[in-house]
């Protein structure tokens, strides 16, 4: 239960961390941002997003804080910690290596 069906788990972590690298954001915001930037290719379901957020928080990569939205509503904002930033770099590097390898493979053969 709660297993992401649309995205690989590790990839989702990477996307969340990357999205939060720009600015603190609430869950809904993260969903929108990923959807927009990916041109509606990546759709994050709450069933994947929130467990992932909670896990990342427990691992100390992101930090949660309640704050007001622009519209004046209370929402839980997540921001990247220092450890989270390092983790993002590690994961990004790994992803690049992997996707580069896959691309190379696809282009060559």
């Amino acid at each position, binding site marked *: 239960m*709660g297993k992401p069906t649309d995205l690989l788990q590790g990839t989702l972590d990477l996307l969340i961390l990357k999205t939060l690298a720009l600015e603190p954001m609430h869950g*809904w915001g993260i969903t929108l941002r990923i959807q927009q930037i990916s041109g509606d290719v990546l759709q994050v379901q*709450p*069933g994947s997003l*929130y467990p992932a957020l909670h896990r990342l928080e427990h691992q100390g990569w992101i930090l949660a804080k309640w704050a007001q939205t622009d519209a004046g509503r209370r929402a*839980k904002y997540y921001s990247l910690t220092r450890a989270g930033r390092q983790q993002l770099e590690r994961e990004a590097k790994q992803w690049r290596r992997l996707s580069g390898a896959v691309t190379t493979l696809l282009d060559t053969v």
Partner: protein
Amino acid sequence: MATRLHHRVRMALRSFLRRPAAERELDEELQFHFQEMEARKATRGSARAKAHSQARRRFGGSDQVKEACRDMRTLRPVEDCLQDLRFGVRLLTRSPLFSIVAVLSLALGIGANAAIFSLINAIILRPLPVTEPEQLYIARVTHPDPLAPPSTALIFSNPVFEDARDLVAGPAEMAAATTIRQMQIATSDSRRATSQLESGQVQLVSGEYFHVLRQRPQIGRLLGPGDNRTLGSHPVAVISDSYFRRKFGRSPDVLGRSLIINDAPFTIVGVTAPEFFGTELATHTPHVWVPLMMQASVRYAGNRLSRGDVRNPWPPQREIQWLNIFVRVPSGDVAAVAEAMTLALQRGYRLRNDYNEDAELQRRYQANRVALTPGSRGLSPMRDDLSTPLLALFGMVGLLLAIACANIASLLLARATNRYREMAIRLSIGAARGRLMRQLLTECLLLALIGGGLGLLVSSWGSRALLTLANYGTAATSGGLDLSPDWRVAGFTLGVAVLTGLLFGMLPALRSARVSLAETLKSQARSVISARGRGRLPAAKALIAGQLAFALLLLIVAALFTRSLQQLIRVDIGFDRDHVLIARVDARAAGYTPAELPPLYRRVVERVTAVPGVTAASVSRNGPFGGGYVTSGFEAEGYTRGRHEWLVTGEDYITPGYFRTVGLAMKMGRTFGPHDSARGRKVSIINETMARRYFSNRNPIGSRWGYGTNFDEDGFEIIGVVQDARYDGLKSDSPSMAYLPAAQRPDDYLASLEMRTAGNPAALASTIRNALREAEPSLPVTSLETLDERVARGMRQEQLLAWLTIGFSAVALFLACLWHHLIRSNAADGGARRAHGAGREPGCGAVAHHARGAHTRADGIDRRPTARVPCDAHDGDAVLWHHTGRSCGAQRRRGHARRHRGARSVSAGTPRLAY
């Protein structure tokens, strides 16, 4: 890295400790997400309703999301466990009748098991409280000939002990000890006069005793080898902790004070450690230890195998075997030590005059070997006595617990059927099946552990009560038996409790977790039951059948025990058990010389016969049911014995009135008279068994028997044959007995004073005690009881077993019936509730029917509108129904549904989430 670890721990603890807040935040966070999503759809022009359902679809069950989020918490397992426990407790308090009866029957069942186990632990399993008890061995003499009389441990003379000790010095250490004897002890010091005489338990030990047992003194010093060198010149004593406490109030100035033991003064040099109770787990534990060399001074005359002169000091005599030997073998090479001891034993035999002269004795003794048996638990007559009954009881209480288990299991099964709906709902809103099973097992374990805890209380009380009933109570309180629960008992109880919980919880849990989600939710409650009912019945029936079978088994055992008890009660013991009162006197301890004995006995008999109501009196060495008697090997004139046959007979020395007093009839010949005196012909009376066995082909009157074959000089002429009587207790037939006139055994101290009464003997007890005290103030009376009491003591174990089994089977039957009743009424109750469309369990108490279809699908709403009150209708979307007919407010206050694992989100308050 350290900070991250720190962070994770903090997060884990925070989310664990602030669970309610975390739950609220999670709720709010998801609500925010959902509302934003809805708002976005709405601005994009979808109709509100459409947006709602779309959002709902996209959101994908907020409960599953929450559950997934909760799963991310580090301490989730602990959280779950606590939650299960809380829920379990709530369930138990919800059905108090079930819980109380279940917990009580478990407490009884587990407690009975723990009680028997703690007795087994204390009596059979627990080692002596000494260092490295596994190195200790007890020496026994074995004979290869299976026809030889069984050996006892008490078989060593002091010279053999000393030889053996010196022979194995190095690889092994050796100590000797006598049996424990009751002696007259007075305490005194320089300032105060000697206190009144009191009997106490004294054991004589060699100087190595305390060292071999690795004992340290509490104060002062213990006996050492230097305290046991010269005959009669070591008047030093060590006292036990309980004696120290009782007689001296733990006053440290006890050292140097004197103890008068059987008239011999001793100086107290030390006190043993509190936990030390000697080497014998028995009814009597020693109060005082004195050196072996003081045997003659304290007039020790305990058990022995003697061909020597018991009137002279025993330690130098090779012919008197009176010692137990304890060996500590640190090297573990037991065989070599036993070999060396055998050498010393045989060498000892060859140094004996009687051995060298007696070819028969040589033939008998030359094959004797020393064997070492593990002695880590000491010598224990009590263990030999109680082992079998304890193991039998253990089996019975096991059955009892099995019945309790089956009972609870069958009731839980019935409840499980009622809980299918609860389970189905919880499954549907995101609980895993494993999680449900764990929850059910937790409930059962909780029940079992509460029962086990109470059981420990029951057991500590029960084991003491059992011991008291078995007449070992005084021993337990005098410090011999440590019944306090140790890790073994605690572990056993815990193990039994957990096992019990798993046992009675497994079947219902498996069943509940197997519930079919779609079928249960879809169908009406009634049809669920009927569909499931077919599968349920065989198990429930088997359980009930099993209980009844177990109860029946217990009943049969009870009947068997009762039957054997009944037979024991009916046994004709020979003696007239209804009119005899017996006093034990100790003339030896009081210091009477053998020459003073005949007049003493005469005076005593005259005095008690003068008491109104006493019709006859006599004095004897052992008396009826006196707990032991002398046995001797003998030769019968005119009897040819077989190659391996040894003639053995019991003996008693009696004054002339004995047979009339104890109610034994003469069958032939005459009884003793005044002319059978020390100067007269040596005469004896034999019982029917002895006459039948050894004088069957001739008239026993006038025949002779003797310890040797020279009948003219040493033989006893048989002047009468007396009726048989049971001397070995109720269970064995009358032994062969020979009675000798006390007048012809002037050196023997007679300990038993029998009195025949016209009426109830117990009524005369105090009168006689007073009369004796008045007539012979210095003669200690150590006990005074009726023969019937003595006989009954021999049946106590059987009595106890019979009563216990009857009790157990009554409890078992009661439990079986009670549970049967409970299950039936529960089923009926459940049935009635189900007719209202409700489950019995709280989880079913409030069920949210999510979709609109709930109205039409929910069964019973049209038929019985009053039974189902809509609590809260909101937008026609979420309707909270509750089925139990309680008011909504009450329901909400209790908050069943909300706190329900898995049903957590189904709030009884205003629905915050649209579905």
